[in-house]
């Protein structure tokens, strides 16, 4: 077993494993005719950090983007199966994807600040959601929570693109927080960052998991081990017709996955025998 530092006991937290925010059952995702992910069942616990790992192309991002219906924006993309969000069917007919995304924020692989001032980046979400007044407070609060306030408070009107990569990513997290979401999804949030910035973001995630439910995709096993409570391991399998589909192989507490996985493929992957 790799010599990795596993989160868990050393950070005592109130883990409510049986209070699910998302309940996924039989989820398959299609791009046109291609079934990119097949038959996923998992639950995301409230105010936990759930990590999704697996080799490239196994469908981690695809599943993540179902949680806030970002896939709706891709022509031809379609989800089958069920995702319950607090008992409500996320793909139900009456559900407004825009409202879904307001509740379920997202942070992307490449920091994507808008080419506007830092202030306007944070204020954008509240504004488009019709929040009026006290904008300064909202901005300060979000930046503070994202551990960025001290670094930028003197240049809040500067263009966000002038920040460093790590700062930009924290800005994107602050931007997500500013609309007061319930869940934050992160798709490889550190893969474009240097080690120091990565450490800062990891610390921030820990911090945020007190108030928010977090789902993170990472290709860095060590990161999953360091920050998450639960880990889902995906891989891509070729079916009898020769088509590759992403599958969920194992989903368990992170400590179990990294010390005592129950599936051979999980073990091979985390020990570096493939991938």
């Amino acid at each position: 077993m790799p010599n990795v530092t596993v989160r868990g006991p050393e950070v005592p937290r109130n883990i409510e494993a049986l209070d699910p925010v998302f309940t996924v059952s039989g989820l398959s995702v299609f791009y046109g005719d291609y079934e990119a992910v097949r038959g996923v069942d998992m639950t995301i616990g409230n105010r936990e950090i759930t990590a999704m790992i697996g080799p490239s192309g196994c469908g981690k991002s695809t599943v993540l983007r179902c949680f806030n219906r970002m896939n709706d924006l891709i022509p031809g993309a379609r989800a089958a199966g069920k995702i319950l969000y607090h008992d409500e069917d996320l793909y139900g007919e009456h559900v407004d994807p825009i409202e879904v995304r307001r509740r379920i924020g997202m942070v992307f692989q490449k920091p994507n600040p808008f080419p506007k001032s830092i202030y306007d980046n944070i204020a954008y979400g509240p504004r488009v959601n019709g929040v009026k007044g006290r904008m300064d407070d909202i901005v300060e609060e979000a930046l503070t929570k994202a551990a960025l306030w001290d670094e930028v408070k003197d240049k809040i009107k500067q263009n966000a693109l002038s920040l460093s990569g790590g700062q930009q990513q924290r800005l994107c997290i602050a931007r997500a927080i500013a609309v007061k979401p319930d869940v934050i999804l992160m798709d490889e949030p550190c893969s474009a960052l240097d080690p120091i910035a990565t450490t800062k973001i990891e610390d921030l995630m820990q911090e945020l998991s007190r108030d928010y439910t977090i789902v993170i995709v990472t290709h860095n096993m060590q990161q999953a081990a360091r920050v998450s409570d639960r880990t889902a391991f995906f891989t891509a399998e070729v079916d009898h017709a020769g088509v590759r589909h992403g599958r969920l192989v194992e989903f368990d507490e992170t400590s179990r996955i990294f010390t005592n996985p129950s599936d051979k493929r999980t073990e091979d992957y985390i020990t570096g025998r493939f991938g």
Partner: protein
Amino acid sequence: MAILSTPRSAVQLASRGRPLKEHLFRIALLASLAIAIVFLAMLIIYVVEEGWPRLDATLWENQPSIRRPETAGIQSGIFGTLWIIGLTALMALPTGILAAIYLEEYADKSKWYNRLIELNISNLAAVPSIVYGILGLGMIARWMQFGFTIMTGAITISLLVLPIVIISAREAIRAVPASIREGSLALGATQWQTIYRQVLPASIPGIATGSILALSRAIGEAAPFLMLGAATLVRFNPEGVWSSFSVLPLQIYSFITRPQEEFAILAAAAIVVLLAILLLMNSVAIWLRNRYQKRW
């Protein structure tokens, strides 16, 4: 914490009444596009309807006539236009493509002269065509003493479309991924080998598309010929590059300026022919583009 105040089980994901505004916006956008298209349709219907009585073989079999507008044709204009376009293709396309290769593959952007060439090309693309007419009149017809001939017209039009050819050829060349160049160079190919054997073959559909569109712009030009005094009543087809000539757009212009109603009909019919040629060229360009769109 706002979070805590959201009762988890009572979430409401239904929309908050935005769709109407969204819908109107979308409809407004589509309407704008539709206006442009409807306008084009109206124009085409109008000229076809106006020119209908004259849309027969006499139109391209006969020469223009001042005495018999009702049977006058546009043959000399069609041939003049073909000559001009043919020569323009011979002059502007190779020059433009070579220049595009230079700018994309060789030019070091940090050198002032290369930046000057680039800026100059984008400026030339915006120079009014009537100014090219002045260039043709002053430099080519008079100073170079090429007179008011096909040659003068073709050179003038070549210079006019050259920036367009260069810009579109550059785009096509740029669309060839850098990995193809790297792959070739890493095998010990020289730069020209890489360009000639990899980049050009891969970009030919794009270059052809751009070239056809550039030539179709050239076909419709009238203003420079106005300055070049391309004789308006030409009752013979050009026989060589030193021949007098007229072109279709200029003939149309001269028909518009005649008093008899028959000439207005003739103008409309000639416009239909011109538009048909253009539509044909556009279709070829679009077909090429769709057929050979990015393969990597």
